[in-house]
């Protein structure tokens, strides 16, 4: 759990949150979330530290499936949807880019502080995992509620779900079943995304934007 490569991956995930919130081009945003997905996919392999000898088959499968779905399939779907839409960037978020970066920074700082208290004391290195998970969930939430474009909102949901996945890394040894559930949730997200993209955005919102009813 305290492997140095593992903690670097957690830091990369944390930094990608900021990139997602700071990015205004939708294509860059999707690329970032795809990279985050691939990084998450590597995590189950490293969760033991550096032991590669007795790697359970389940972890390898979880890794591959996660990297494939989060890093390739969903981003490709989003990019494909983007090609059909006339929009290329998030123009008027409800909260501007800089204020939302400040909010994300506050959230991350709080996550780091609370991570120390919330982490189970028995697992060394768990504090950073909890901090990253909380920071990622909060960043995804921020992205989800402050942006107007449907694509950005989906990315926000993905980031939020990535945070849940990071949290699952704590339980990977105790309850591997939880990891499988996480993957299943991913699949649900994939289908959800597909459903929204193919059926709703283009038909109901020709501009690809959430509109106020008034």
């Amino acid at each position, binding site marked *: 759990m305290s492997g140095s490569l593992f*903690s*670097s991956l*957690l830091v990369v995930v944390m*930094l990608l949150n*900021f990139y997602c919130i*700071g990015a205004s081009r939708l294509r860059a945003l999707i690329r970032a979330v795809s990279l985050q997905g691939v990084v998450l996919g590597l995590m189950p392999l490293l969760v033991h530290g550096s032991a590669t000898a007795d790697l359970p088959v389940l972890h390898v499968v979880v890794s591959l499936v996660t990297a494939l779905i989060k890093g390739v399939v969903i981003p490709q779907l989003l990019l494909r949807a983007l090609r059909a839409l006339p929009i290329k960037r998030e123009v008027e978020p409800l909260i501007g880019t800089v204020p939302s970066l400040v909010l994300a*920074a506050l959230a991350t700082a709080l996550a780091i502080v609370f*991570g120390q208290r919330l982490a189970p004391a028995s697992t060394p290195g768990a504090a*950073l995992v909890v901090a990253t998970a909380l920071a990622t969930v909060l960043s995804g939430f921020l992205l989800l509620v402050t942006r107007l474009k449907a694509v950005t909102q989906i990315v926000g949901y993905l980031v939020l779900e990535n945070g849940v996945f990071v949290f699952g890394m704590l339980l990977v040894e105790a309850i591997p079943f939880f990891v499988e559930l996480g993957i299943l949730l991913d699949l649900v997200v994939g289908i959800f995304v597909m459903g929204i993209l193919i059926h709703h955005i283009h038909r109901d919102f020709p501009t690809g934007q959430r509109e106020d009813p008034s």
Partner: protein
Amino acid sequence: MSLTDRLLQLTLLALTLAFVAPLLPGVIAKVKAAIAGRRGPTLVQLHRDLAKLWKKDMVRSETTSWVFSAGPAVTLVTTLFAALIVPIGPGPAPLAFEGDLILFVYLLALGRFFTTSAALDTGSAFEGMGAARDLTFAALAEVALLFGLLAASAHAGSRSLSTLLPTFDAATSTAPLLLVSAAFAIVLLTESARVPVDDPNTHLELTMVHEVMVLDHSGPALGLVLYGAALKLLVLAALIAHLLLPPLTSQLGWLALLPTLLGLAALIGLLESVTARLRLSHVPAFLVAAALLSGFGFLLEVT
């Protein structure tokens, strides 16, 4: 550490400050030229320029005062002083003492104060604008630098750069080290006026930041400015190199340090070739990001 060892280290340090520092901008220029498909200036171009400038006459505007002459001199001296505090090479720095990290940050600030004062002293509108921008960026970069050093200090339990930089390593605190290194990389680019923040090649007064402040210096004073800038690049690159490298114990450490310094310069050249400069209004956000990175590193260390 024996006396001969110490003497050897001081000699190598003096040689590094004199000859490797001007080499770093040469490496950057060479990498940029190679990527653009040009042959580029020789690696020792800055050494030659310095020798040439030293022989030249100096032109001084009649409206300037002593502040203008003091600018390059004080900047160079403070940077040299900083170079004696940061450990460059194995063993502690020549002037290492407990608490020197604060002095290090403020030596850089003092040098900047005199550079900008000299720019303001000329009375040129463009130079004043460059000075204002430079100070804006520096104020933000200083936060990142201080937080990063404090994180390393909290980890090592020491307030001397010579102790804390080698103790802060990847094995015991990976995440803070990564965050602080990334923040220092941004500080390095800002302090040495490199691409995402400033463009050393631009020739429009309106877009220059560091270059415009030194427009009025000529001859030996310009030489001091150029050498001071190269020295600052070396000092900050050494700061990052000591974070990335394992503790250097013997004089063989120079063999690891020098390639790392040149490699960092090559990386800057690569970065300058593949990225464009940030819009001026976006630079503060970039620097605040650096401050946040080292702030998170600090939080991870102290909580």
